[in-house]
């Protein structure tokens, strides 16, 4: 199987879907003439022309809404947000329009659109530019929320998202852009709403997604050296959430650590943990441990940023707590002494 970077995998999915379906078009800031902020769309303008590769003014609310209107007409817009942070200026168009048109019209309209772009802390992007916001989007019915962790999923899930008839928020991770992995050729199956076991294990379930999947796998390696075999579940999509795969794993391991990179408070991990308790209470030998960012706006300074976001060690520590069955969780995995 050929190896690709996560970034190139995204590029390939876009290229192939643009080639396959003339109703697919792209819209966003600097995707054309500039060649894409992260070069993902380099050459697209030249190849597909400015009818289908549309450079926009810096007007996220406006062009997300324009894409939404175009989707109602049967086009299949793929909107690039330069980073997911900028969804905040377009939130109403996303959550109060695109997500609701089908329901309010009782099925008279479909809204086949993708909003994609990188999210999450990368390296010192500071407080305004380090969001991923999956907890907000997934809280809102009518949207699907996809967060791939591997190049193969980046390509496969993006293809599926573009073919999906619903608004899909596709949150890439800047820190994963240059990671490499095998990507099958052709039209491999990659459904939205299906988690994946990235590593089997019997002692503990680690639930993660996006950038924390490789971190969790690293943590699992370290744990294995201590004789703790962790099973790593990659959620891949946050909404719909494949809780069954999580529950099956926990039934086997009886312990769970749930990880998210953004703020823990009212986040994805709280939902996953709650559902684990609700569906596998008697199988649990210890409280579910949550790992997430410190509940602060992300600071710029390197050392503070590192402290604020989860890493191998925060997952390992949480795993230890779960294994020891310590009742009182220690708050954010990375709380400083």
């Amino acid at each position, binding site marked *: 199987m050929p190896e690709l970077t996560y970034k190139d995998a995204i590029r390939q999915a876009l290229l192939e879907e643009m080639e396959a379906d003339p109703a697919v*078009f792209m819209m966003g800031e600097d995707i054309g003439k500039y060649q894409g902020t992260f070069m993902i769309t380099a050459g697209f303008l030249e190849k597909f022309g400015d*009818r289908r590769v*549309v450079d*926009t*003014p810096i*007007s996220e*609310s*406006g*062009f*997300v*809404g*324009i*894409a*939404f*209107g*175009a*989707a*109602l*007409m*049967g*086009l299949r817009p793929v909107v690039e947000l330069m980073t997911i942070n900028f969804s905040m200026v377009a939130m*109403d*168009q996303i959550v*109060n*329009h695109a997500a609701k*048109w*089908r*329901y*309010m*019209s*009782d*099925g*008279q*309209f*479909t*809204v*086949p659109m993708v909003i994609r772009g990188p999210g999450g802390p990368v390296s010192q992007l500071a407080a305004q530019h380090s969001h991923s916001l999956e907890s907000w989007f997934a809280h809102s*019915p*009518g949207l*699907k929320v996809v967060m791939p962790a591997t190049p193969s999923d980046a390509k496969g899930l993006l293809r599926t998202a573009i073919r999906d*008839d*619903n608004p899909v928020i596709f949150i890439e991770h800047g820190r994963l852009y240059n990671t490499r992995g095998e990507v099958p050729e052709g039209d491999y199956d990659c459904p939205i709403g299906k988690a994946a076991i990235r590593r089997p294990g019997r002692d503990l379930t680690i639930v993660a997604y996006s950038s924390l999947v490789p971190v969790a796998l690293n943590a699992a390696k370290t744990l294995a050296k201590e004789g703790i075999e962790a099973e790593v579940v990659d959620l891949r999509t946050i909404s719909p959430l494949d809780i069954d795969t999580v529950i099956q794993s926990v039934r086997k391991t009886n312990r769970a650590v749930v990880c998210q990179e953004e703020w823990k408070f009212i986040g994805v991990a709280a939902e996953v943990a709650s559902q684990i308790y609700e569906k596998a209470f008697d199988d649990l030998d210890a409280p579910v441990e949550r790992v997430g960012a410190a509940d602060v706006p992300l600071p710029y300074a390197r050392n503070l940023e590192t402290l604020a976001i989860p890493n191998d060690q925060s997952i390992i520590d949480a795993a230890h707590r779960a294994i020891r069955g310590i009742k009182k969780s220690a708050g954010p995995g990375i709380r400083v002494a």
Partner: protein
Amino acid sequence: MGVKKRKALDSGEALLSPLPVNEVDAVALYRRMQLIRLFEEEAAKGFTRTRIAGYFHTCTGEEASVVGIISALREDDYLVTSYRDHGHALARGLPPREVMAELYGRRTGSSHGKGGSMHIFDAKRHFMGGSGIVGGGIPMGAGIGFALKYQDSDSICACFFGDGAVNEGTFHEALNMAGLWKLPVLFVCENNLYGMGTHVSRANAVPEMTERAAGYGMERFKVDGMDLFEVRAAADELVGRVRRERRPIFLESLTYRFSGHGAHDSGKYRSAEEVEQWKKRDPLILAEDTLRRLHLLDDAGVEAACAEAKAAVDDAARFAEQSPMPDPKELYTNVYA
């Protein structure tokens, strides 16, 4: 009134006949206005009788603007409205039964009761829906224009919004892109002088709408929105120009709402005299006068129009009253495609 004549006609192309449509159509337009007037009055009663709830806005006083513009559209054109959308739906030909049943929240409504007063949709009539968010539908209207251009269609989109909506960022962003990309959209600013209780002069640094929209590279016109045939003539011309020239045009239709903003209205922001003054230019009376002068209407004709409208409205109310509520399992349908 101080209403400037629409520039289109000022600029020389005088009408040969006093009517922009043939005689039969002229009366039909008048009857459509009657229908809307009586429908809104009946709906207001329905609200008082708690058959209708939620936010509820009628367009009484604005019928000439609504009917004059919408009647100038072709069947294959598209419409986007605000939450003040009952009249627009009727003008577009939605059956009064379906609209009333939607207001009643019944299974037989245009969206099977799931949308309500602010959210009338009819995909097959290209009635793309009312957004309850001020300015929220403007990007969508531009997006429909985007799709029509993309699809090389010769349809156009008419996008309605209020004078208050021009103060939302969505207006600014969408109009700029429409102007920049030459999207075939007629932007109709329904200037009824108030955004809820705030007079345009207290909300706009430049209250003159056609000046306010100077920064978007599109031609701008203003029409007397109380005069059905003035509006229709302007709309004929401007709809035609958008269609032929494939670029957006901004049209201000100066009108007035006789009713309160919504079902509840403090009434504290305008005087009874002002309202009375405007009622002298009631669009129904103005149109009736014109038609009488041309001997197209007499007392009997007026009575017949009223009777016909009343019958249709009564029928709609009865139909709605007798229609069943949505099936409970509808709660979970059409969240996703």
